[in-house]
């Protein structure tokens, strides 16, 4: 409870949480909110500006941008959630294993992670999507894989310090199994930094997926993915800047929301940063 109170006392975190909540709300109730179908073209209404009929105007095929942005929130949240899960679960398991057992297993896992880290993230993601084929599912897999080493490293370092802690060793002294030590004591205590990183990671994942979408490697038309929409709008940037502006703004707000929220979460979950 104290954590949540602290979080609301932190103004930027509260603002971040509000943004995230707004986007989640839009994603949940999108179909009810959107005035038009996001996929059906209306060639007569191409590239219209902002108006009472089309709040955000229309794109090159005459689709309502407002509706497309609303539907896109679903896709973006899904990208964020799934790719974070794809990096978080194996990353945590690898980090736990490497940190707790140490030795050659640690070296093997962590050197492999180092290799993954050695590639620029976007290049690696492009490489993976190129192999798997350009579509939304593969984008999520690619972005997920790219961030596995980050989680593995974070988890490993907290495991390394936790396994030296007396309360962890005490379980061994009581005769507790490795499984119990890892599952009941080390994992719960190494979660806070991962939760924070995952929150921040949601924003990063959306950004990466948008970048892939922008390069044409992510979501394929006519899906209303924000990155792809941005890429599409780029062609008309001088003629109708709003086509690119609104999906861009949506990405900005989502990433901003998750980052502010994640920063606030870190401040409240990290006891060393807590004021007395």
């Amino acid at each position, binding site marked *: 409870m104290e954590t949540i109170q602290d979080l609301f006392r932190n103004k930027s975190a509260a603002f971040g949480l509000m943004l995230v909540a707004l986007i989640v709300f839009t994603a949940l109730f999108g179909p009810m909110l959107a005035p038009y179908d996001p996929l059906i073209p209306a060639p007569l209404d191409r590239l219209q500006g902002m108006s009472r009929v089309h709040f955000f105007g229309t794109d090159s095929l005459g689709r309502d941008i407002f509706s497309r942005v609303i539907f896109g929130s679903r896709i973006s949240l899904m990208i964020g959630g799934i790719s974070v899960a794809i990096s978080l679960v194996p990353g945590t398991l690898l980090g736990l294993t490497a940190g707790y057992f140490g030795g050659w297993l640690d070296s093997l896992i962590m050197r492999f992670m180092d290799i993954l880290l050695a590639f620029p993230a976007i290049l690696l993601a492009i490489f993976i999507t190129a192999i798997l084929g350009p579509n939304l599912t593969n984008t999520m897999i690619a972005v997920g894989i790219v961030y596995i080493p980050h989680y593995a490293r974070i988890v490993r370092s907290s495991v390394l310090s936790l396994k030296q*802690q*007396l*309360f*962890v060793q*005490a*379980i*061994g*002294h*009581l*005769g*507790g*199994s490795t499984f*119990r030590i890892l599952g009941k*004591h080390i994992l*719960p*205590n190494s979660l806070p930094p991962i939760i924070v990183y995952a929150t921040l990671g949601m924003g990063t994942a959306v950004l990466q997926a948008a970048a892939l979408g922008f390069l044409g490697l992510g979501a394929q038309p006519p899906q209303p993915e924000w990155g792809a929409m941005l890429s599409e709008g780029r062609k008309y940037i001088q003629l109708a800047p709003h086509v690119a502006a609104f999906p861009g703004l949506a990405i900005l707000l989502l990433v901003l929301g998750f980052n502010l929220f994640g920063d606030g979460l870190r401040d409240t979950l990290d006891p060393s940063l807590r004021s007395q």
Partner: protein
Amino acid sequence: MPENILSTEGLSKHYPLKEHGLFHRQTVVRALEDVSLEIQEGEVFGLVGESGCGKSTLGRVLLRLEDPSAGRIFYRNQDLGAFDRDRLKAFRREAQIIYQDPYSALNPRQCIQNLVQEPLDIHGIGTKQERSKQVRLLLEKVGLRPDQATRYPHEFSGGQRQRIVIARALALNPKLILADEAVSALDVSIQAQVINLLKDLRREFNLTYIFISHDLSVIKHIADRVGVMYLGRMVEVAPKHAFYQEPAHPYSKALLSSAPSPDPRSKKERIILSGDVPSPINPPAGCYFHPRCPECLDICREVFPPLRLLSPQRWVACHLYQ
């Protein structure tokens, strides 16, 4: 004659130091060197010495939390080193530890109920209801209220946390308890409460304590016999009364006279040792204590004196008595 619950023969523990270089010479820290002792069922064996003397290492090796480099340990006359997994787990049930810092010994994310219940979970004792009833009983035993079971460690003071650690140690009905500086971190008034609690529990459950402390007045209060360690070696073992009235080893004498007494009028003659404890990586030749010893003989510089029986139950490792 009570039986030995734990005994050792020539116990040593050396930690290798990593050394890189062309001439790869392995150096070791001699944390424990040739310790033989017997601990009887139901007694409180006090282990004193200054930091780095190996008393905590001895405690850890005795409970097989670490394996000795040499020597053997017998639990109820059976070789502890030969125990298989199941017997070791049974031994873990009977031998418990109370740690110096109760805060770091408790998982901050577990409530008291779960913390105290965990040993019962690990060893699969009783049904769910029985376990939680047992936890309530244990909390009452150590002077906490059962309704505090849902709280978390940070809501308690140091003394109360130590009571939680004690309750957890008692959960499995142990026979032997290693108390490693169990009251050192506590304030005097709280320390006295915990010492009294430990004494009561010992009587009630017929426990054997190995009580490690640097504080001679605490040891004096709780122990039946005292073992003094210096630089990894046992230098004196004696019944408490004999030890405090007439310490034999020069180091024991210095230790006792260094402890400040709460009486401003007693201007006792203090033996102030010169210098520091030597490094256990490179201990001096002969008796390890000779560079600081006020009664050093020529032989002390060359030969290490073995632990010898001085009078019944009194052992001392010093050339003055050979």
